């Protein structure tokens, strides 16, 4: 077993001195030893000594790599936000918020009212594309509306106050919708360490100043300080997501060299939001049906038709019924006609309770050769349409009694989800009969609303729906005080309104206690549109 082989001053070290530190310049794995190279003749020694002398001569340091790094860092905002996010909105919420903030800071079009909805995970019940589509389709006389949403699970009013302290100036909203939920206020104290997930989206310098006293470690403070001077450091998580998404996409693309085929059509002739049909050469027309419920749910539908990579038509449908479009003739055999809609409609949200699909148009018989839905959509860059809805039902496709049984089973299960559900329920019941004191996050919300009001921005405070299955706490004094607090805010500040949507959805339109599922979200769309209309009118 070799002992320490660090050279002690020995005769050979005179030689090492002459050699300079050439060998020491190496990256060694866990080694501190210096390899003494055998020198065969005095000539070699002299040569090496000369080399060492020349190495010691002062050289011009060329800081080009460092300059490039600085350039890469400083110019980050010029290139990074142009790269599309390849995963849905629910994948990496932080990255999505950063993208949304960046989009919000783009100049507003003249004559357009900008509406910004924000909140914790409960803001997920507001689909900004649906609400925007509803508002712009049905109210032709009013100003056009541009809807935005900022959603970050666990992000509370105190966090949003920091975000807006430095970003609001550039956002220019005309109306803000604050999506509230009792759950966000249960730990009514912001005197806590920042969650890394939330810190990731906040402006670091403002966060550092605002939260200095509550950041317990020097590393935490240094982290924010460094993030405030370097974009690459600040946005490292977003870069990671972006790189990983693109690598994943590349891998999929390399595997997907399959011939073109039909996709996205169900046996009952309904289609998905995106579908492709192999058209017979003699077919020159495509007939499709726009369901009235689709128009009801979205206000309008945009359709894009393409053959190969060429888009040959775009339609905006505001009336339901059968439509037709001429398909250009091309030489050759079967052609793949691809149709993409900007939205889909939910039969279940339209009162057909057993149909959980998200649908597009309906086709006439015989309009295609062999199209059936196989669940696979062809790759597209960017592959995920931001308007696509995630068909996620945590409690399955149950209804009525079966749903309640499933709910009880989930609540009692020794799973992570069950534990979380019980913790939420118990923490609400714990404060049920306490006296309401507006502390912590309530004060932060007050400050936030005051700031909006000072800037002349209208505010809609929306108490988001909760599952009626855990409503025991709602009759208690604490919850009454909680609601009165928002009513008081609405009375205190001009242009502030409070909307209570607490009991707007049945239990089976929730994924848990407070988070509406996609069907619930679609049902809430028209209600949110009404709120925006009402608030803008005032």
């Amino acid at each position: 077993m070799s002992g320490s082989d660090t050279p002690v001053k020995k005769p050979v070290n005179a030689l090492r001195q002459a050699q300079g530190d050439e060998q020491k310049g190496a990256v060694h794995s866990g080694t501190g030893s210096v390899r003494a190279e055998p020198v065969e003749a005095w000539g070699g020694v002299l040569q090496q000594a000369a080399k060492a002398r020349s190495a010691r001569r002062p050289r011009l340091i060329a800081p080009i790599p460092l300059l490039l790094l600085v350039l890469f860092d400083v110019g980050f905002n010029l290139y990074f936000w142009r790269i599309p996010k390849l995963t849905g909105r629910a994948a990496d919420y932080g990255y999505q918020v950063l993208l949304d903030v960046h989009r919000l800071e783009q100049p507003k079009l003249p004559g357009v009212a900008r509406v910004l909805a924000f909140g914790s995970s409960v803001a997920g019940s507001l689909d900004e594309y649906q609400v925007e589509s509803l508002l712009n389709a049905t109210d032709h006389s009013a100003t056009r509306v541009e809807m935005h949403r900022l959603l970050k699970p666990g992000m509370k009013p105190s966090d949003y106050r920091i975000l807006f302290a430095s970003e609001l100036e550039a956002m220019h909203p005309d109306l803000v919708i604050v999506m509230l939920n009792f759950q966000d206020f249960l730990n009514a104290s912001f005197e806590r360490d920042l969650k890394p997930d939330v810190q990731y989206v906040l402006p670091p310098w403002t966060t550092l100043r605002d939260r200095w006293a509550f950041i317990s470690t020097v590393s935490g403070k240094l982290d924010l300080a460094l993030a405030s001077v370097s974009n690459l450091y600040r946005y490292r998580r977003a870069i990671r997501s972006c790189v990983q998404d693109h690598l994943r996409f590349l891998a999929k693309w390399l595997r997907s060299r399959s011939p073109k085929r039909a996709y996205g059509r169900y046996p009952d002739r309904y289609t998905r939001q995106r579908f492709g049909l192999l058209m017979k050469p003699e077919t020159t027309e495509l007939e499709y049906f726009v369901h009235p419920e689709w128009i009801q749910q979205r206000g309008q539908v945009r359709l894009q038709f393409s053959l190969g990579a060429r888009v040959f038509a775009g339609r905006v449908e505001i009336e339901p019924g059968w439509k037709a479009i001429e398909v250009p003739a091309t030489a050759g055999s079967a052609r793949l006609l691809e149709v993409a809609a900007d939205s889909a409609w939910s039969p279940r949200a339209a009162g057909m309770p057993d149909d959980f699909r998200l649908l597009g148009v309906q086709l006439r018989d015989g309009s295609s050769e062999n199209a059936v839905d196989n669940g696979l959509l062809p790759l597209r860059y960017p592959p995920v349409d931001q308007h696509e809805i995630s068909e996620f039902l945590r409690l399955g496709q149950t209804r009525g009694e079966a749903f309640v049984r499933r709910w009880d089973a989930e609540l009692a299960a020794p799973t992570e989800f069950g534990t979380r559900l019980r913790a939420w329920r118990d923490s609400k019941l714990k404060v049920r009969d306490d006296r309401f004191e507006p502390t912590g996050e309530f004060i932060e919300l007050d400050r936030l609303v005051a700031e909006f009001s000072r800037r002349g921005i209208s505010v809609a405070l929306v108490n988001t729906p909760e599952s009626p299955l855990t409503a025991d706490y709602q009759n208690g004094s604490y919850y009454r005080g909680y609601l009165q607090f928002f009513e008081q805010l609405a009375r205190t500040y001009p242009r502030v309104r409070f909307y209570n949507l607490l009991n707007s959805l049945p239990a089976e339109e929730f994924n848990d206690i407070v988070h509406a599922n996609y069907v619930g979200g679609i049902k809430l769309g028209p209600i949110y549109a009404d709120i925006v209309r009402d608030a803008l009118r005032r």
Partner: protein
Amino acid sequence: MLFTSLEFVAFIAIVAGAYPLCPVAWRRWYLLAVSYAFYCTWSVRFAGLMLIATAVAFVLAKRIGTATSEGARRQSLAVGVVALLLPLAAFKYLGSVSGFLSDTVGGAPWLSRVTAASFVGAIGISYYTLKLISYVVDVYWERMAPCENFSSLATYVAFFPQILSGPIQRAESFLSQIAQITPVRPRMVTSGLQLMLFGFFKKLVVADRLGVPVDQVFDHPHAFSGLAPVIASYLFALQLYTDFSGITDIAIGTARLFGIESPRNFDSPFYADTIQDFWRRWHMTLTSWLGEYVFTPLRMTLRGWGQAGLIMSLAINMLAIGVWHGPRWTYVMFGMIHAGYLIGSTLTQRRRKKLLQRQPVLSRLHTIVGPLVTFNMVVASFVFFRATTLSDAFYILAQAGGGLLNAAVRIAHGTLHGVMGKGHLAWNAADVLIVCAGLLAMEVVHLLHHRGALSRVTGATPGWVRWSAYFALGFAILIWGEGESKQFIYVRF
């Protein structure tokens, strides 16, 4: 202050940046001050303990050096070794003993207080105790003269890059460097920074990522079966190596920023073709320390016993390696397993050698099979090193054996279904890819270094390629470094 924290990076930037501005004559004091400042970020109380231990070693070594009779020299040595081992025993082992008593005999309040207070904050005590003992023994053996300067010895003991997890440098090697402090050469700074970057990469990108499934399986072994325990066992071997060699690289690199060369601790251990060879390449400073100060004296004492003496010496030496890691039966078992490996290997060495000499085919085969067998033996022993209890370790090994058998049967039947067994490892394709790429990059560097070609390659590489490599490593750390970095495994020893 963790080596992977921003605090440490800022600390290094300040202290290493100010070092060249410090007059050469004061640099020893400067290093002493920053080393103690670093240690105080862990515990001020235990910094006092380190100072006292240093003072005891300094005085006793002086007495050994000036004593005129062998008896007095031996007496000072004995007092020194016992006095230095006492705090180690008290702060590292007493907690476990009192915890054991508290659990079995019943909870006297003072016992639980002792259990709670022990070792908390006594970071580095295992490392500096070994340094001090070797110093006193070296003086006794007249390998070196007693250190004349207390500040030099104190700097040697507290030298902050080495205090958390070594390498365990010998006094003579360190003191000779500190006695002749010269301005730090730019090349040394560059190589130090390169090494630090490489160490951060190993730890943050590779080791911490490997740690995720490892922790999953070893923290809840009963939740897994099939191939998961097998995979976790192999991944832990890689995690331990990347973690420990990562911190060693950071330590050696940091020391170079102050012009101090440290000894190497690893030499591609997983390429070792025998178990003896493995211990020549793994945690080299600890094994050489134990070899010199435990094994050799024991072997000399027991030389009259023949083979039995050799077996005893090996067993005690390996048990010492196990117990040095902490007062746990799993470490004892780890040491005993390796004692068994080494005894078996030593006793059959001659016959194997002869056989290989007679059979050239076997000899050629041995170059491939040898490292594979050794690696697998080491992986099996590391299960005891990582498991929380002995029963967990046996369970994991049993599950791993069953999992391999099950996989073989299923594959023979042409199906992969059910090969993974129960439990889902929290690892995705991106993690696998990153770890594979990281390990590949690491091994290329290690291989080049092992062949002595690294300096030639880096010297001949154009600047833009070198800088691209630095940026690639830097970006990998920034983007794929695990955000919530874990403590280095060997810091807790």
